């Protein structure tokens, strides 16, 4: 079992890892679950319709056949109690991985996450561990409407004791999920629903990617684009658009929001002097608000221009596909923001 350093997975994985395969993002996640379940009998899955139905998005499809109903446990619609049960099991050394069908439903489990899971370690010290993973399908883009499209990760950044992970590629999804499962802390693991459909190359064999290390997607000297999850892919596209105009953008995929690899971001900003922060969540109090302040705290003297944010505006996600498409940040918006900075 090797730990792949961030540098090996960054850039073109096919170059770093000679043998690679193409899989769907969902399959990469499933591989992580299956490998960890084979490796450690304490790992089990809990969630609504993850077994017989095969998972709302198919991530767990087929796992019931291999691992049986004790380890792939379909639960009633009882988010509060089911996350609480996972906390209880985790304290005793089990490693439950809970699927919340839509991230929007974590609202029902907030007491367990915020007042219990996140507090055990601090209150009871080293005698307590809560190795729990909460898998959260998040984000808009599929016309699921206001209550099934939210990106709520910023809430969890405000809760010490929780880790927050948000992969952008299939390769990262697998490696980061494996690390999340092995982590002794409660981890909120964000899976973007639009990314589920993407088919990408991932390294052959078992590998884990450490939590808390950002990935430099591409190098550039004029402006830094910082993003995570689906927006890291949009930022990557924006960099291509900008390159066509002669603007050299460096893209940083954060991968993990808590702990935050601010060092990699600051290093890049020190070089470029300009930064665009991107997130799919709403603007006020979002992840970018925190990242922006940290950049200012660590590197204000490197900034040649104001920090820019590209986010969903402060509104709920509307159902009508035309409206929905108009609010989610896209590559063109990111490129426009970067262009405006470079021109200043």
């Amino acid at each position, binding site marked *: 079992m090797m730990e792949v350093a961030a540098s090996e997975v960054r850039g073109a994985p096919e170059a770093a890892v000679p043998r690679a395969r193409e899989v769907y993002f969902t399959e990469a996640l499933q591989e992580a679950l299956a490998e960890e379940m084979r490796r450690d009998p304490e790992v089990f899955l809990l969630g609504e319709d993850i077994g017989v*139905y095969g998972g709302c998005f198919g991530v767990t499809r087929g796992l019931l056949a291999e691992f049986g109903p004790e380890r792939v446990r379909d*639960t009633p619609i009882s988010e509060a109690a089911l996350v609480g049960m996972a906390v209880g099991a985790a304290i005793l050394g089990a490693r439950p991985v809970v699927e919340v069908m839509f991230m929007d439903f974590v609202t029902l489990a907030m007491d367990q996450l915020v007042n219990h899971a996140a507090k055990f370690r601090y209150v009871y010290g080293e005698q307590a561990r809560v190795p729990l993973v909460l898998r959260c399908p998040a984000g808009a883009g599929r016309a699921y*409407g206001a*209550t099934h499209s939210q990106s709520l990760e910023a809430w969890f950044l405000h809760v010490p004791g929780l880790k927050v992970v948000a992969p952008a590629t299939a390769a990262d999804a697998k490696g980061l999920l494996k690390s999340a499962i092995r982590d002794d802390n409660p981890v909120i693991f964000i899976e973007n629903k639009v990314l589920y459909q993407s088919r990408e190359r991932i390294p052959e064999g078992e590998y884990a990617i450490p939590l808390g290390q950002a990935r430099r997607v591409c190098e550039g000297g004029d402006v830094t684009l910082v993003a995570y999850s689906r927006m890291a892919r949009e930022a990557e596209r924006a960099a291509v658009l900008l390159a066509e105009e002669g603007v050299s953008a460096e893209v940083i995929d954060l991968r993990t929001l808590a702990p935050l690899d601010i060092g990699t971001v600051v290093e890049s900003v020190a070089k470029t002097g300009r930064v665009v922060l991107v997130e799919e969540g709403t603007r006020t109090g979002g992840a970018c608000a925190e990242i922006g302040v940290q950049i200012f705290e660590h590197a204000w003297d490197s900034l040649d221009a104001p920090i820019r944010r590209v986010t*969903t505006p402060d*509104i*709920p996600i509307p159902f009508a*596909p035309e*409206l929905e498409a108009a609010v989610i940040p896209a590559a063109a918006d990111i490129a426009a923001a970067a262009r405006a900075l470079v021109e200043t």
Partner: protein
Amino acid sequence: MDRKLLQRFFYQMKLIRLFEEKSAEFYAYGKIGGFLHLYIGEEAVAVGACAALRDDDHLLTHYRDHGWALARGTDPGPVMAELLGKATGVSKGKGGSMHLCDPERHFWGGYAIVGGHLPIATGIAFAMRYQGNDRAVVAVFGDGATNIGEFHEALNMAALWKLPVIFLCENNLYGMGTAVTRASAVTDMVQKACAYGMAGEQCDGMNVFAVYEATQKALQRARTGEGPTLLEAKTYRYRGHSMADPELYRQRQEVEKIREQHDPIEILRERILEEKALTPEELERLEREAEEAVAAAARFAEESPPPPPEALFADVYAQPIPGLGLEEGSRDAWQR
């Protein structure tokens, strides 16, 4: 039997079925996006219950709400337009299939978070009592929703304070792909009334008369201060949970058998003809009217425009917030 009532039953059940078939078609053609939860097979529940309601009673439902809106009398055109995300939809295209509403008919919405509306319904009932009127509230949900905390918290308070609310559980044997036997420690949902000392009733949800009578009884209780009722209608959905459901959890034959032996529309038709309450020609005419209503709704929806870009920033707050959406760097596609 009351001819008017029978006509209403037959017309509405047919209307709902045809409406749902049309929306399934629109979904298949990509004209409806996101989720679509069809009500086919369960028509007798909404039609029977709504017929028992007074015009000023309140209604709240889960996301499987198209049939409920139609049974409550909402114009099918704006309902279909909502499914297509059009400006003329009941929620102006911003809600979608799971978030229909019709405040004029005191239909306070479809709710997409399982069980989330049960405390809200209880609150409306509380307000009705507080305001000293005899209006009642019907809250509709599935078997799966009885496992969520809000169900239990709401039932307790409703019973404790004898609030005029009917908790109407559509037990269609599945919550998504999970059979009720795999999700609930008791499989008769009505048993869950016992813990709260609440009246519990069960009825055949495939029989519109049974639902109608059971709802009347529960409403009577609500209006006379006897408090809430947990009313369980045993029913069945013919289609998948949503259009995305691969239906790996049940046999095709199970669905076929219920369709053939317990179809709510056929049960009603047979009873009407047996008792010669309406003629076959009258039934045919009602069917044609339902077909025409659905065709007109579909036309209306297709011809309607999508919501205008300004709709994005409307109604975030009761009063508009100046500058909302104009922040630098926030997505400005709507301005382009």
